[in-house]
Every structure is written in C-alpha cells, then in structure tokens.
C-alpha cells in the first residue's frame, strides 16, 4: 500500500515542483490515500525535529547547511510547511519506492501544535526545543496547553536537545527517561536582574515555590533555581560565552553571529550541540556555522527620496519577538519615527483579540529619540491607546487608518529615520508602494 501511495504521489510532486508550487500538497494527498504511510518510511540514522516559539526555522535551516557542509545528503522542509502534511511531503520527496529515505540526515521543522500529530507516526532520534512562551493565544489557549501536548508526545527513545535557559523547556527533562542534552548562554554584560514583562514560568513546577532568577537574558530566559532545590537551570553541556557583541565561544571554539541579537546565540549553539552529538568534527561545525552569517541580514532597509527606512519583523501575538524588535529600535541612537500597524491580527484566523498588546513592552518607545509614532490600519486607535498607557505623549502619535495612505503619511510626518514594525499583511502594502515609487529596498 505504501508503494502504491508513493507511485501515485511522487509524479504529482514532480509536476508541482515544475510548476513551482505547493510544498505540502503531496503530503496532503498521500495522507488522504493512506493514513499509515508514515510507517512505510525507513528513516535515516539522523532524523532531527525542531520546534519552539521562536528560532525553529533558523535552527532547521542552519542544521541543513551544517550537515551539507559536512558532506551529508540532507532532506529539509521549507519554512511554512511545518505541519503534518509538510513533514510528510519531505519524506515523500526523499523516499525511494521501497520507503527507504535516501538522505543521510532529515531535518524537520515542526509547528508546536503539530508535534503531537507528527510524533504519532514518526519518532526522530533528536528533538530540539528552542523555547516556549506566550504566542498566538487565540489559537493556542496558553503555553501550558502547548507544553502538555508536546510533553505527552515525547517518548524515551527520543534524545532531547533543550535550551537550558528556558524554564518551560527545562520541564521537558523532568520525566524524560531518554537522553537529554542542554545548551545555553552564560551570564553576559547585558544580563538583567529583573524583568518587568509578564513572565510565563516563575514558580517551581514541582514544589510551587517562587523561582529565584539570578539574571535574565530576555523574556523568561535566564538562570533560575527553586529555593528548595527541586528545579533549576541545568548546567549546559554546551554553554556559549559572549566574547563581544557579535561573537561567542563554546569551549575553545569561536563562533561569529550574523548580528548582535542574542537569539542568534541560542540558534547557533543548538546547532553546535547537534553537530557534536552526531559526531561532527569541531572545526567543521565552527566553519559551517560561521559561513552562515554571510547570508543573513538583520534588517531590511529602504531608501526613497529623503526617507531612510528600516523594516523590522513584527509578529503580532508573539511578545518575545515583538519585544526584540522594539529593543532594537530603542538601541538606535538617532532621532526617529516608528511606524506600527497591522490589517489583521492573525494570518491564520479571524479572531480579534487585542490582549497581547499589553504583554508587549511598548514602554520602550517612551524615549526622547522617538519623535513620531504612526499607527496604521483598522486597529490604529487601539495602538494609540496602548501607547498612551505606556505614558507616551499622544501629541507624538499619528493615526493612518487607510493603509494605502501610509507612505504619504510617512513622507509628510516623519522626523529622522523611519523604523517600520508592520505585520506582514501591512508591510506587503508598504513594500508595493515603495517599489512603485522606485525606492531601493
């Protein structure tokens, strides 16, 4: 039955590929034809799954790069096809008709909520969990729901590779009888003693005492311990130590970051850990991770007449990433205008929850260098209120309900450099207008 399914689906996949279309369609068809198709595949010795609120795409991409550099044949699902059918499509793509996967390494990025479906059929040898925090709550309910689903899917044959600095991720090791490997980041000059954001896990999951945090890196990440000794940050097997703002070392190995954002350290250290566990040579790991940085840009910039703009990632409903972009803006010393907005709250669903705006640290825009803030889209007034409650002077704030007029508003009102934190739906509109007017992006 597996062979027949593959005989039907593989030509469809080739055809779709020629048309440059649909990465998850072959998987959908195969799953409809044969629910047991997953069991038909003989997986390669190194099968890695990666999940987490942030970083999974980067880690999966970097792993693919690293193993390719090492001379392995690698199969990998592309960003956006990280659900069940997407994972299945990669398998089909790399399978012989007898079900043998003809790559040496399989890297699957998985959406957090789909781990439970994929693991029903497929157990990886290695499972990286980068972090878990409040994210898309109108879809997920809350982070414990996500944690429990993943935790219930983990079996003891899986080797877990965990971020030691995230207490929620640390919880995965508590009842896991299989192997655990931890990676993390040592205290840095930028570590803070306190954190004003709403945190996700601050009490011991075992005895319910309030956890002590020695320091925070960002979000819920840091050095935590239960006062009664029931739960703490495990000393990482692979611990990064910052050398300067853009490089760090693990043991004696020096790794360069593509830019100074700390999340890079976690992503790269996770890859380093995997490389070591699977027996790659140190030099090869370091060289391949260092060659990555050439291709990654921190930010997209644009220029139009006298406007110097920067486009930053704005993930609605994911405070940890949103806060990082806000922190980046704050770090830029010059006078600036910030453009915020979204047309829809989520690209996935049409539920209009605005609670997440209050889990984001808009207070960091309450800074003298921020001269104007332009709020764009149908929720512009809600953004104004959020900024007002961050004690930002409402005289600085401009609303632009019609996204089509956003560029005109920027031209007319901007002071200094322009930083745009727009959700992808609104950013698309801006980019289109910029291209039309001949801007360099």
């Amino acid at each position: 039955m597996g062979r027949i399914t593959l005989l039907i689906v593989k030509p469809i996949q080739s055809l779709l590929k020629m048309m440059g279309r649909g990465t998850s369609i072959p998987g959908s068809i195969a799953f409809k034809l044969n629910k047991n198709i997953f069991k038909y595949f003989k997986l390669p010795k190194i099968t890695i799954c990666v999940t987490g609120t942030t970083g999974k795409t980067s880690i999966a991409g970097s792993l693919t790069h690293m193993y390719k550099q090492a001379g392995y044949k690698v199969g990998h699902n592309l960003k956006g096809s990280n659900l069940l059918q997407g994972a299945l499509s990669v398998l089909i793509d790399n399978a012989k008709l007898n079900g043998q996967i003809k790559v040496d390494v399989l890297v699957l990025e998985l959406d957090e909520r789909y781990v439970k479906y994929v693991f029903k059929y497929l157990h990886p040898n290695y499972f990286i969990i980068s972090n878990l925090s409040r994210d898309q709550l109108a879809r997920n309910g809350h982070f414990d729901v996500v944690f429990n689903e993943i935790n219930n899917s983990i079996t003891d044959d899986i080797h877990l590779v965990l971020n030691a600095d995230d207490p929620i991720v640390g919880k995965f090791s508590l009842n896991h009888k299989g192997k655990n490997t931890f990676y993390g980041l040592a205290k840095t000059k930028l570590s803070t003693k306190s954190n004003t954001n709403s945190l996700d896990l601050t009490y011991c999951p075992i005895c319910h005492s309030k956890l002590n945090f020695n320091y925070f890196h960002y979000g819920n990440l840091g050095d935590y311990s239960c006062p009664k000794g029931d739960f703490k940050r495990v000393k990482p097997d692979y611990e990064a130590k910052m050398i300067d703002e853009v490089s760090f070392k693990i043991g004696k190995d020096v790794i360069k970051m593509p830019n100074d954002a700390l999340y890079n350290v976690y992503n790269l250290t996770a890859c380093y850990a995997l490389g070591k566990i699977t027996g790659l040579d140190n030099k090869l790991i370091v060289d391949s991770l260092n060659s990555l940085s050439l291709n990654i840009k921190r930010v997209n910039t644009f220029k139009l007449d006298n406007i110097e703009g920067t486009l930053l990632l704005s993930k609605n409903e994911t405070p940890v990433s949103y806060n990082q972009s806000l922190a980046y803006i704050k770090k830029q010393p010059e006078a600036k205008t910030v453009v915020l907005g979204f047309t829809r709250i989520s690209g996935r669903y049409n539920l209009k929850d605005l609670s997440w705006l209050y889990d984001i640290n808009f207070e960091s825009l309450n800074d003298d260098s921020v001269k104007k803030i332009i709020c764009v889209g149908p929720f512009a007034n809600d953004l104004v209120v959020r900024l007002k409650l961050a004690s930002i002077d409402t005289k600085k704030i401009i609303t632009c309900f019609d996204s089509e007029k956003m560029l005109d508003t920027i031209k007319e009102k901007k002071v200094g450099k322009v930083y745009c934190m727009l959700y992808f739906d609104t950013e698309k509109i801006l980019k289109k207008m910029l291209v039309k007017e001949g801007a360099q992006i």
Partner: protein
Amino acid sequence: MIIKIGYLYYDLLNLYGENGNIKALKKQLEAINIKVEIHFLTVGDKIDFNKFDLIYIASGTEENQKIVIKDLLKYKEDLKQYVDNNKFLLATGNSIDLFGKYITDSNNKKTKCLNLFTYRVKQEDFRMIDEAIFESNIIDKPFIGFQNQFSVMQDNKHHMFKVIKGIGSYPNSQKEGVLYKNFYGTYLIGPVLVRNPYFLEYLIKKLVLTKDPNYKFKSFDLKEEKKAYETFINNFYKDIVKPNV
C-alpha cells in the same frame, strides 16, 4: 484622596495582558487628581484586605490557579467580609472560578474554592475561544472583549451580563459574569477596562463616591479609549450592536 489597589497574584495570574487594567485605573484616577497606590501581592504575602479600596485578580493557567487557590483559601473569611462590606473587587478571566464552590478539572479532580458564590466550575478538555459582546444593566454601552478558557460555569445566581455574542458562562449560554454588591467578575480576558472605557468611568465614579459622596469630579482622560471602542464596534459589530455614538 488616595485609592489603594491590591493586584492579587500579579506574577501567577497574568496570562493575557491584564496589567493593562492596572495601567488604565492608575491613569484615570490620576487624571481626576486622585493618588493611587498599587500593591503587587502574591503567594506568601500577608494580605490585609481592609487596607484596599479595590482588589484586582486576573486569568492564569490551570496549574497556576491551583497554586493560587491554596494561598487564597487562607483569606476565605476576609474576602467574604470584604465583599459583604460593599468593597470593590474586579475579577477577569478564569479568576472568577476561584470564588465559586469548587473547580472540577479535566481529570475530574475537585479543588475546593472560596465558596463566596454558589456556582461550580468544570474545566473541559477543549478550549473555548471567541470574541464577545455582552450587555449589562449597569451601563448603556455594550461590553466588548474576548474569551479564552477551559472553564464552564454552572449554577451562577448573580449574572452580570446578557450574551449578545460569544461563549458566555458555557457554550451557547445566554448569560455571563458575576455581579454582587461591588464584586464585578467576568470571563472576559485581558485589558477589559481599557477596551470598555465607559465601564472604567462607571467603576471609578462608584468607587470614589463610596469614599467621598461629595467628590467633585474633574473630567476623565478617555478620549482615545472611547474612540478606539467606537471604532472597533463600527468596524466589526455594526450589524450586531448600536454603538450609541
């Protein structure tokens, strides 16, 4: 005048940006020249409820609810007295679960709660998530907001809302919320006071007048909040409710 607000279990029950409510209260009380003290309270603190003019408590994970209830039961009598004495308490999200008789979790395990009210709560193994519009008897304007919960409530005798849209106390229920004396409870999550400025105004006026019946009010600073409220209704709920603008 000073208004003292006790923000209960701020570090355990803060799932959906509820600190927005504290920010909104502070901003408006200060706008009308009233000093505000916010006391951040949690497990292990000695809480003297008599000290406070308003208690606020918000939503949390089911695990955190259990941590909280263990601590909160110590204050069962204090809280009962507090509410019976017409003092103000605002509970949003699943924190209202804690004031009923008990919670039955998805494994059918019962946790005893404060027993201030007669209702019982069952936590389902599916999440109920939806936008909400409710009407109340206390203000003309409808409430807007969002629900995100495992809880369903039964045997509530003190409803606050009629459900126009949303889940309510349980799927397809007509009613929601708890209104008893100055206890205001609702499954609405997050920045309820920010998104419902007319309720915020109502709540603050009532609160201040209980302290000083002759208080001369300055006007609130709610222009932007009201605009956001009305824009939201006009954009999305025009066919369901009249914004009464």
